[in-house]
């Protein structure tokens, strides 16, 4: 009773403070797909820059629909989207990573995907699941990203390594051989500490069969498999195979080119980057699937396209998303950006079917694992970041670090 009154006072002040005007101002059916309208789209980073060209072509073919793309930097994307959601000014279509999906679905800012138009079977399983929150689909997969092992083949020869490491023990002995016989400064580059260290840790965690949160939503970061992953990860630092401190903004490709770092895990964009920035390095490197602990499982990432709940142009938005995610659109997008198609059909011809490096990504993608779409995911991973740091800096044993992380994550998922 008392509390209700107080809550109301606070709430009114907050509501005004946030400039909330009735969010559901749209209502009704909205504008027909082919009526004259402007479709607003937000895309991040490099995608934001390049999507503008696609939009222009689309508008040429569909003169009534004027697609307006706003590029948003990744560093401000999250805040910008949240404040737009708060003010009810989200664009008709937004690019969204898997980790955002949970939050925005939770605050009810997203329109469920029409599964009659977009079929689960057409996409990689992990990238489809990325858009699923509590059984409802909110995002259409646009492009995928997974991490694989990049390694120097020329130095491998010097080190007497004749094939890509396929297991944890092969990976470790490769790192040692690189260092001892090929004279590289380090054996493998994995992030020791700092924000999002977890990204570097996923290939180990998933490959040993571990997880942070299991299917039932329970924290399981202290499972024996996860502890084994922590141990293995830490070993590289104990033995001086990996650098113990890395500054924010560290560019691994520079040291890869120099030969200081012969191996690292990263995503598909690195291929483009290596080809563009270090053309002399061509033919001296290759990619391989994540070395297996129990099996070879990497993380899945990438982006989906979502439609805002408040959009008046949902019909046209749906058509534009169809244009971007059908086979032709996906092939075209790959040509422009080297982003890997989320639609499996797009992989059946051209360089995507022929390039052996791209095939590695494709194979890795089949089993890749995505993060659960929990609204508090970034907070959960920050706990794992700290645990990894404690292990790599030799402050805590793998077991203690895992236990501590477990109790903290439990507190977050309840």
């Amino acid at each position: 009773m008392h509390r209700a009154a107080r809550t109301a006072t606070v709430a009114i002040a907050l509501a005004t403070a946030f400039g909330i005007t009735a969010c559901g101002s749209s209502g009704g059916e909205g504008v027909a797909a082919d009526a004259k309208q402007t479709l607003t789209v937000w895309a991040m980073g490099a995608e934001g820059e390049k999507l503008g060209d696609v939009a222009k072509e689309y508008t040429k073919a569909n003169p009534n629909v004027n697609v307006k793309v706003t590029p948003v930097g990744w560093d401000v994307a999250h805040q910008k989207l949240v404040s737009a959601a708060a003010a009810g000014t989200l664009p008709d279509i937004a690019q969204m990573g898997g980790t955002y999906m949970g939050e925005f679905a939770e605050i009810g800012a997203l329109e469920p995907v029409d599964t009659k138009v977009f079929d689960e079977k057409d996409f990689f399983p992990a990238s489809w699941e990325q858009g699923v929150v509590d059984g409802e689909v909110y995002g259409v997969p646009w492009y995928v990203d997974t991490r694989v092992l990049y390694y120097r083949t020329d130095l491998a020869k010097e080190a007497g390594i004749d094939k890509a490491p396929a297991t944890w023990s092969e990976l470790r002995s490769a790192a040692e051989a690189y260092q001892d016989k090929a004279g590289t400064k380090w054996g493998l580059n994995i992030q020791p500490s700092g924000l999002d260290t977890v990204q570097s840790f996923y290939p180990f965690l998933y490959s040993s069969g571990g997880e942070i949160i299991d299917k039932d939503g329970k924290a399981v970061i202290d499972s024996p498999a996860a502890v084994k992953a922590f141990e293995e990860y830490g070993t590289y630092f104990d033995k001086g195979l990996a650098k113990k401190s890395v500054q924010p903004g560290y560019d691994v490709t520079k040291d890869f080119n120099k030969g200081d770092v012969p191996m690292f895990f990263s995503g598909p964009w690195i291929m483009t980057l290596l080809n563009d920035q270090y053309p002399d390095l061509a033919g001296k490197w290759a990619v391989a699937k994540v070395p297996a602990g129990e099996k070879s499982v990497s993380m899945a990432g990438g982006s989906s396209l979502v439609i805002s709940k408040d959009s008046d142009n949902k019909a046209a938005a749906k058509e534009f998303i169809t244009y971007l995610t059908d086979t032709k659109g996906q092939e075209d997008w790959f040509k422009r950006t080297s982003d890997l198609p989320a639609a499996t059909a797009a992989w059946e011809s051209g360089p995507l079917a022929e390039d052996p490096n791209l095939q590695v990504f494709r194979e890795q993608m089949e089993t890749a694992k995505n993060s659960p779409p929990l609204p508090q995911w970034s907070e959960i991973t920050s706990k794992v970041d700290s645990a990894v740091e404690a292990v790599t800096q030799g402050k805590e044993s793998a077991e203690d670090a895992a236990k501590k992380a477990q109790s903290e994550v439990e507190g977050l998922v309840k």
Partner: protein
Amino acid sequence: MSTTTGPAASDAAKTAPGPGGKPGPRGPSTTRKDGGRGKPRLGVQNLAGWLFSTPFLVLFTVFMAFPILATLLMSFTDFGLRNVTNPLDAEFIGFENYTKLFSDEKFLKSLFNTGYFVVVGVPLTIGLGLLVAVLLNNGIDRARTFFRVGFYAPVVTSIVAVAVVWRFVLDPADGLVAGLASEVGLTAPDFLGDEKLAMPSLILMAVWRNMGTVMVLFIAGLQAIPTEVREAAKLDGAGPWHEFRRITLPLLRPTMLYATVITTIGYLNVFEEPFVMTQGGPSDSTLTVSLNMYREGFNFFHMGYASAMAYVLFVVIMGITVLQLRLLKDNTK
């Protein structure tokens, strides 16, 4: 708070004559405070005044007063991500955020780190700023402008550019310091990657960045000292050191007070340096209160909790500022 008891009354008696009784710039202001401020009248003669201040008042209300009030209210609620679109659902939880803060290891650590930054950083900034100002004012005659600009340049340089330069300087692998060290056969430490060195490195960088502001203040202060006073001291046989201690320093006191207060406030809010250089690491050794607040608020969306943090920081800053004003002012006698 009873004013009838002995000690309290004598306290009041001691402090009262201070500002009022002393001649000089502070005298008139106190009398005006008592006399001048009647009820503001909204007459025609005041209309122009109101008209001219309206833009400021509107902007101030919208962008300062309102957010400040909203933050205060929010700090008593569990405002989180789900309340972004439904602020009405935020629940009033009283002082829970505040009590939680003081058992939050991370917050206490960030409080300690901020204190460390201030305690080491402020004296260094003030000291070096003063030194450079005195040197520029007395020593170098020719390239004075060049040096002034040189020392002030870091102040107006974007933090991102600064970060790039400093990362190069401090990089343990192929940075400037590492290079110089290896020339003479030493190994440079990993400045930003070492828990003990990360904070001192950031302080060094902040001192370099903020010294210029303090220097400009001191130069202005130094130039306001009448030459007659110095000459008189010289005639009385004061050497340079004596002159500095007995004449310059006391006359610089108001500048010193101002510089110390603004530098302290700035350092208590320190955010940019750890944000661009270390992101709070390694092992939270450079996590400051502001950075912690930013993370809680914008990464995890614990708006209520972050607001409480903001108010704790506010109280700390106010307390320290009041203390400084007291301590440094009372010494002027």
